[in-house]
């Protein structure tokens, strides 16, 4: 080594690298896809990443049974089909499915309530993986527990596969509202706040100081239209996951589906511009039919999974 040169050691899988990657998704749309063809449509429409899975949540809901990690061969085909990042889901607590996805070269893992949980008490210890994780949350305590376990991105749970945005709005308002109230608390109350939320103290201190989560915070679970996506952005979230809302729309007509996908991408960029929102919302064909949340019996609610 020449004099005056430093040792340029490199590090991988650090929180900075994982959090930084999540920052790159902001202002973007992550789309559920079940085939390489869907993945290419999503990429061409402007998705910032695709979520590779065997069935979209609407079909998981309809088919019932145990929903698991997708077949690795299907994930590999989707990885080969696009240049944007590929995410995939594992069951809550199923750290072996996560090891498999990391070995496949998946870019981000969703430890997801949409799949059938593998562990009814514990989530995956995510900080020891090199690959970053996203997790769902209904409230701030849940969000901070997941960050404490090493999640690099949080999304609202919403109610996946319903095409109904009401639960995503409820979870976003809950999390953002709880953060605003913590900011207003004096410092000596934060330990009791942490106890009541069941959240790590240092993360409650972070929220108190910054008014935000320490990681990016996306909307998910019921977004079906450009207006839904812009609503979540105006509420204060960083970006949007769209699952069944794209590929279950337009009666299966791929040109209609691509049009809706493009419209939702534009709506997330121009979320504060009603003229553009009006323009992109025109003539999108049939949205997914959707489910009224009140008609779901409690056992059918995916959002109640997670601890």
């Amino acid at each position, binding site marked *: 080594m020449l004099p005056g040169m430093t040792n340029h050691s*490199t590090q991988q899988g650090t929180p900075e690298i994982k959090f*930084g990657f999540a920052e*790159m998704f902001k202002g*973007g749309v992550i789309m559920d896809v079940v085939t390489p063809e869907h993945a290419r449509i999503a990429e061409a429409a402007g*998705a910032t990443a695709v979520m590779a899975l065997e069935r979209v949540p609407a079909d998981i809901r309809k088919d019932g049974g145990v929903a698991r990690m997708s077949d690795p061969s299907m994930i590999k085909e989707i990885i080969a089909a696009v240049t944007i990042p590929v995410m995939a889901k594992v069951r809550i607590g199923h750290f072996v499915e996560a090891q498999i996805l990391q070995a496949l*070269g998946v870019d981000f893992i969703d430890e997801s309530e949409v799949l059938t949980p593998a562990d009814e008490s514990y989530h995956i210890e995510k900080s020891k993986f090199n690959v970053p994780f996203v997790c769902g949350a209904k409230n701030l305590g849940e969000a901070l527990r997941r960050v404490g376990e090493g999640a690099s991105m949080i999304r609202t749970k919403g109610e996946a596969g319903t095409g109904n945005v009401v639960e995503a709005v409820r979870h976003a308002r809950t999390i953002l509202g709880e953060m605003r109230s913590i900011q207003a608390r004096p410092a000596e109350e934060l330990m009791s706040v942490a106890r009541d939320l069941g959240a790590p103290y240092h993360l409650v201190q972070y929220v108190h100081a910054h008014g935000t989560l320490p990681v990016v915070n996306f909307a998910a679970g019921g977004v079906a239209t450009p207006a839904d996506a812009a609503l979540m952005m105006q509420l204060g979230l960083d970006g949007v996951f769209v699952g069944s809302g794209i590929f279950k729309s337009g009666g299966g007509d791929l040109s209609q589906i691509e049009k809706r996908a493009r419209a939702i*991408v534009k709506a997330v960029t121009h979320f504060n511009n009603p003229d553009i929102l009006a323009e992109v919302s025109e003539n999108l064909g049939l949205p997914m039919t959707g489910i009224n949340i009140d008609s779901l019996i409690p056992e059918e609610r995916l959002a109640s999974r997670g601890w």
Partner: protein
Amino acid sequence: MTPSPSPPTIGVLALQGAFREHKRLLQTLGAQVSEVRLPQQLEGLSGLILPGGESTTIGNLMVEYGLIQAIRDFHASGGAIFGTCAGMILLARTIHGTPPQFGVQPCLDLMDITVQRNAFGRQVDSFRTSLDVSGFETPFPAVFIRAPIIEAVLPGIEVLAEHQGQIVLARSGNLLAGSFHPELTGDARIHELFLSMSRRPEQAH
């Protein structure tokens, strides 16, 4: 004593990606910063940052909203541009690693460099290192996230930093392109360099 020049006004392309981090860092340096989503928002700017994000997403939205020609015109009239990661891809003349179904990936075609997308592999291969940057006294902390590299440069391009023999920071006139994310590591020296490149000649004295 001459009065210090007023800080330049810098736009950050805010179609998608890590635009807020650039904005925050520029504000700590005293710059006026605005978000650019439509062509008319380029008016009155001295410099423009193209942030990291997904180059395919950002490129599509630039085409849809008439920003390709508007940004070329902005540069032709003297505006400085700094592209990081996806933003560097958008500045390039030639892009390798575009999905075949895309045909030609939308880009600005402004800087005489050839870039290779995802040159280091997938996210699990992303890394942090420290770089020797030409003109800096101490190494610069650099985070590479599914990063591109500059595979080839034409004459007239000044190479400012390399990593393992590959070009990761380069300058040409008032264009600056980097593979990594100076907005994420809190070291403001590259942004300071860009601010100095953004001062129009009439503001320089």
